[in-house]
């Protein structure tokens, strides 16, 4: 039961928000974080998969006691995931949320006009 036709007032309000400089800034900031980090974690993960397949001697090198490169590489995938999730949350709280809140307020004002 999604509205098939959005009332004109809403379209105007959305277009007005789209034109604000802060919206372009919000999109830019989002991309600045998401694009490089997505490339990083995908490359890091695929490197791990590739090493499991085709660099087994390297992966089998012992580092501390019975702990080898493979185990450390695997555990580091966990910690990099935790780290990126935490970094993104911090970035979004500081850089994205305030802009989004301001634009949201503008949308509400525009809709009332």
């Amino acid at each position, binding site marked *: *039961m*999604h509205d*098939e036709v*959005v009332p004109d007032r*809403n*379209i105007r*309000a*959305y*277009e007005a*928000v*789209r034109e604000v400089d802060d*919206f372009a800034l*919000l*999109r830019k900031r*989002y991309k600045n*974080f*998401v694009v490089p*980090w*997505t490339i990083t*974690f*995908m490359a890091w*993960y*695929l490197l*791990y*998969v*590739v090493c*499991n*397949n*085709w660099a*087994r001697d390297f*992966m*089998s090198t012992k580092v*501390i*006691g*019975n*702990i*080898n490169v*493979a*185990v450390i590489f*695997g*555990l580091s*995938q*966990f910690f990099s*995931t*935790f780290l*990126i*999730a*935490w970094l*993104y*949350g911090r970035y*979004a709280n500081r850089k994205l*949320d305030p802009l*989004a809140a301001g*634009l*949201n307020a503008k*949308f*509400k004002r525009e809709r009332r006009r």
Partner: protein
Amino acid sequence: MTTQVNALIALPLADAEPGNRNLTVGLFLAVVAVTLYITWWASRQNKTAADYYAGGRSFSGSQNGLAIAGDYMSAASFLGISGQIALYGYDGFLYSIGFLVAWLVALLLVAELLRNSGRFTMADQLAFRMRQKPVRTAAATSTIVVSIFYLLAQMVGAGALVGLLLGVTDTTIKAGVIVLVGALMIIYVTFGGMKGTTWVQIVKAVLLMSGTVVITFLVLLKFDFNLSKLLGEAAAHTGKGEAFLQPGLLYGKDLVGQIDFLSLALALVLGTAGLPHILIRFYTVPDSKAARRSVQWAIGLIGTFYLMTLALGFGAAALLDTGPDSEVAKSKGNVASPLLAESVGGGADSIGGSILLALIAAVAFATILAVVAGLTLTSASSFAHDLYANVFAKGRVTERQELRVARFAAAGIGAVSIALAIPAQNLNIAFLVALAFAVAASANLPALLYNLFWKRFNTSGATWSIYGGLVTAVVLVFFSPVVSGSATAMFPDADWQWFPLANPGIISIPAGFLFGVVGTLLSKDPDSIERYTELEVRAFTGAGAEGAAKH
């Protein structure tokens, strides 16, 4: 990794001591009683469509994070991953890494934008700027196919698993377990809706995490909290030595195997953010910030859990008999965690051992119930909201009528999956979970990402990518060695296999993305482009997004 739950022969796990079995059954009944109480409580709160489909959008980030963890970690990933580690060492650990890293795709690219721009189902988000009928039909088809594949694997696994935990070999009793699990999930979903299902998942996640923490602590205590010592004793005890801690015992034995593993890894990492039962969980929170918090919680919980399975798996390898004739090997690893719990609790004849064994069995049972309920709700919601209300009735139905259909659909889907799961008991259908991930990554993820980030994307592109990715993945698996032409296939006596890989992702995921581009360029659809402004502003800022229900 449902994997192994199927092909098992039940083992005399609890048959020696009826006292054990009574304790296990008692705890099973306690789980059932608690979940039914939750359902009864939730059913009295469900008034509107937002209540039924999205739990009133009033769950907090941490609650939803627990529910996501409860929805995502199946009994197979609980028992299966630790079992795989117990049998194959390091390689058993690889599945869990793909399952975890996948959450970054959900966090960075999907969760918040979907929360702001969608409503109840995955299709809502796509239909935002597309022609309703074709896009909703495509998205609902893919939602229902993915959920039913996943559901069937879980139900067949449930029969085998509960039989195993109770020490039952009889097929009729196992079929009875499937009917019982099916009936319970129908009750949860029909009466409890999203609110009831979410609380069942939260309870399950708390049980699973606490049970696992206790066993992990007891295991690590035996090895002085020294990882190197644990690994060394595991490698020595299994007799496999160094190889047990290195890649290669399970995956990538030859070039085809290596490409197959790469293909599996791609489907795991890209599939999660396209699983419909995960996506609709983002609608249960009041805003995008809470959606972000819930994914962060889920990452913390799921990651911690998988780290603990490492201790469970290697602990089982070091402390239990995992040789070719052992119970662990015969169950394909599934009893590794329960038997480990018994062992660290004091051994087979001790009170501590019996209690821990029964506790882990009850946790596994709660896990099955929570996961199947989530899947049934997802398919019922999509059937009622997308197909019935928006495609067949073209939006001209009342909320009451739509919810009535959702409840009937839940019962219908439950009945169908019971009817399919019972005869499938003796087939090896473990590959269905990997296939569900492959379809989610090949059909759903391309459509979702294009819709959010590509202005030119349109109705034709959406239907092309969904059907294209879905059909490619299913057809390739149909002609792969998991369906025919090998000893472990679903139909071991037939042979129509020509596609060498068990996992289609490496072909079907790029195909899904490519179909999306081709479909888009073949059609001109100015409306989709025009409404992109609205979608974009709403997704990024939350302006005009659905809010929490006010009670």
